[in-house]
């Protein structure tokens, strides 16, 4: 070394002295009430630099202490920890110890006893955590990969082949992206590093090379496949790709050993999805904690979406073939096999879009802390089923409704601590947030143990707002539903939190836009549960093709119970426009879909029609009268253009096998009483 280390150290200690001055000034300002972002940031940065230098110069005790100190400051900086007087007092005593540590590192003093202060720092961090014990552990800064770039990954796992490590080597495919080359990455160095692990190139493919004229020397065209001995740890292989831009192709697979008794299947099973790192714990763990069985590649979302679209087209082409070929010809060209394969591809692609709902749940703890600070109500959060996988679109759109429900639960549901104590409940409220998959649906629940819906107040408010007649006779459930009525708000005083002009009606319409629905269950004195029921997938629907006035429509098969060919007299009119069908001694309301949509096809006698009995969420069992049923098939849902005026009862469109368009029926909207019926009609 050219400069003596002692000289450099001396300069480092000068910087430490400067840093300590900044920390002291900043903390004093904070104690005096200046908790501005800049002040907090200056303190954080100063401690951060001291930590940085202490590591480089090998002052372990100083490094350890400044690291813990910095953790707490980071929480304050990120506004996860409120800089209350108590917290600032702890920070000030930590400053004292930090000064002592610096002095000790310089040899001017002995290493201070920092245990009690460390415990205080720990306590401050824990105090923050008490609000929400389920928070996902933040990645320790020191354990974060040294040189990993942030990127929102879509993780795909390839099943563990369950072979002992030595049985099969690794097969690594590498194709650097344009971005990797543009940032000065050198593929040759990556390959050399892999070779140092024992890799040899099995194949170098230049098939992607364009003609010379079109060659762009900034782009990546080469594609390498390398074989690496099985005993090399996957993390070591991954390390070689540290600096390679994440949109490059990097496949790391356990290659099959040749003597394997089972060639598995030609197609590997549909890949399971690995929980993707969430926003609060970004990209850190996959590599750090990588077992050698789990592998991920990163794919840009637009690529996935375009794949999904293409597969949708493929499904449609398949049904066109099925329509046009006779069964014998279908056999001849092996169409059934092709169809099966297509379905498998479709399932796999759908599963690629699935993400753990944790991503949507992640922001809840933070929100609860904010709410706790605003309302003074402490709330414990319990989360379950956060690994449940749902379509990415659902995760994106469920955020706002979820936020609103949680706000609602804290603001209106959970009572102030004193009132809770008086009612014999724990002073701390509890909110349960859960997700589960049930059949083809995802159920998300937000349950609080608060006071439940105050039905008298809701009723009074609704009457006051003219939503119901004051003397209407309403069931409890009907009163509960009122809070979802447009423009309804129960807050006595407009609080900071709720009462922002967005009500439960918006939550309801958001969820309904996703093809889901919201249910409310409330027990006076015991709490309220909001349940969101969402479709598992947004793109494919198992449908029944029905005819109305010569046109074909798709009815979601999920809600169909049975179809009935009515005998003469089985369908009776109770009042004009109100028909019922008698089914095994039970009377069910019947709706003529032609009437509903105003299709003028001439009224057919019921016995020439079919009644499809469906089970709806809002109206129970209802018969829908259609002309006839054509077929049953999976359809690809295409949304209706936004420019089209929304028509009640239509949920989308699809392309049928013969290339014609069929509209998809929205059963809930058809059977549900219209909003006016639901509210005003109740009073009738």
């Amino acid at each position, binding site marked *: 070394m050219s400069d003596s280390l002692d000289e450099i150290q001396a300069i*480092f200690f000068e910087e430490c002295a400067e840093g300590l001055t900044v920390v002291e000034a900043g903390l004093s300002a904070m104690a005096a009430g200046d908790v501005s972002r800049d002040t907090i940031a200056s303190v954080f940065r100063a401690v951060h630099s001291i930590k940085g230098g202490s590591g480089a110069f090998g002052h372990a005790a100083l490094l350890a202490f400044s690291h813990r100190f910095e953790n707490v400051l980071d929480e304050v900086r990120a506004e996860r920890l409120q800089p209350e007087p108590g917290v600032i007092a702890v920070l000030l005593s930590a400053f004292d110890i930090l000064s002592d540590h610096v002095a000790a590192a310089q040899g001017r003093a002995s290493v201070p006893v920092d245990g009690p202060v460390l415990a205080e720092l720990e306590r401050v961090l824990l105090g923050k955590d008490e609000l929400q014990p389920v928070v996902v552990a933040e990645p320790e800064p020191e354990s974060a990969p*040294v040189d990993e770039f942030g990127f929102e990954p879509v993780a795909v796992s390839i099943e563990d082949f369950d072979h002992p490590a030595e049985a099969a080597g690794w097969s690594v495919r590498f194709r650097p992206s344009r971005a990797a080359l543009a940032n000065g*990455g050198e593929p040759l160095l990556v390959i050399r590093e892999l070779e140092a692990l024992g890799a040899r190139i099995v194949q170098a493919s230049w098939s992607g090379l364009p003609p010379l004229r079109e060659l762009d020397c900034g782009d990546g065209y080469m594609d390498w496949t390398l074989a690496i001995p099985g005993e090399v740890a996957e993390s070591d292989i991954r390390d070689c790709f*540290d600096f390679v831009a994440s949109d490059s192709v990097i496949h790391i697979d356990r290659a099959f050993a040749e003597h394997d008794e089972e060639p598995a299947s030609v197609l590997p099973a549909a890949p399971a999805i690995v929980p993707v790192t969430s926003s609060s714990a970004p990209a850190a763990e996959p590599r750090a904690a990588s077992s050698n069985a789990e592998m991920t590649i990163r794919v840009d979302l637009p690529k996935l979406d375009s794949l999904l679209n293409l597969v949708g087209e493929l499904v449609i082409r398949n049904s066109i073939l099925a329509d046009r070929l006779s069964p014998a010809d279908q056999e001849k060209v092996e169409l059934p096999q092709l169809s099966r394969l297509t379905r498998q591809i479709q399932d796999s692609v759908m599963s690629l879009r699935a993400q753990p709902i944790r991503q949507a749940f992640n922001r809840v703890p933070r929100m609860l802390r904010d709410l706790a600070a605003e309302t003074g109500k402490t709330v414990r959060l319990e989360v379950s089923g956060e690994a449940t996988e749902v379509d990415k679109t659902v995760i994106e759109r469920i955020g706002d409704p979820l936020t609103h429900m949680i706000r609602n639960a804290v603001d209106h549901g959970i009572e102030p601590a004193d009132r809770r104590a008086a009612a014999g409940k724990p002073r701390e409220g509890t909110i349960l947030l859960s997700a589960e998959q049930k059949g083809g649906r995802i159920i998300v629940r937000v349950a609080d143990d608060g006071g439940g819906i105050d039905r008298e107040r809701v009723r009074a408010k609704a009457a006051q707002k003219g939503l119901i007649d004051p003397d209407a006779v309403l069931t409890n459930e009907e009163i509960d539903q009122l809070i979802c009525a447009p423009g309804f708000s129960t807050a006595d005083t407009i609080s900071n939190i709720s009462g922002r002009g967005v009500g439960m009606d918006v939550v309801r319409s958001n969820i309904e836009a996703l093809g889901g629905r919201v249910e409310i269950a409330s027990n006076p004195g015991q709490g309220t549960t909001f349940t969101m029921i969402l479709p598992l997938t947004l793109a494919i629907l198992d449908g029944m093709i029905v005819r109305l006035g010569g046109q074909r429509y798709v009815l979601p098969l999920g809600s169909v119970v049975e179809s009935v060919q009515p005998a003469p007299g089985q369908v009776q009119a109770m009042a004009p426009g109100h028909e019922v069908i008698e089914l095994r001694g039970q009377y069910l309301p019947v709706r003529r879909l032609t009437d509903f949509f105003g299709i003028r096809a001439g009224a057919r006698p019921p016995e020439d029609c079919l009644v499809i009995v469906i089970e709806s969420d809002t109206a129970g069992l209802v018969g829908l009268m259609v002309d006839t049923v054509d077929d049953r098939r999976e359809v690809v849902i295409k949304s209706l253009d936004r420019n089209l005026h929304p028509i009640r009862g239509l949920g989308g469109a699809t392309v049928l096998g013969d290339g014609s368009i069929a509209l998809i029926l929205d059963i809930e909207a058809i059977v549900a009483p219209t909003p006016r019926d639901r509210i005003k009609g109740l009073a009738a």
Partner: protein
Amino acid sequence: MSKCILTVDDSPSMRLLLKASLTAQGFRVETADDGQDGLQRMQEVRPDLLITDINMPKMDGFQLIEAVRVQNEFRGVPILVLSTEFSEEKKARARAAGATGWITKPFDAGKLTAAIRKVCP
């Protein structure tokens, strides 16, 4: 001829430490005090590798990387970021600006050399 590394950091001790440890590894090391200085030194030194801090006065590391990357002659020069910052957002920004890789402070000689070997033959 040994490879030349330009290190940009506003902390004198960090500059000296980097220079000392990299020189010991057989590199030629030049230093700059901040982004602006670094950009100018790039022209004079034409290094094989640029290592820069992020939080610096005058011109920060992101701006420096961008300013270097847009110059044709520096398009292929690997750039490593050496910073106490480790947030994913910062890393993504550095990547977008054109950084090749990232080393988090505190670093040790082994970590530093391993990272350099990844980008500079």
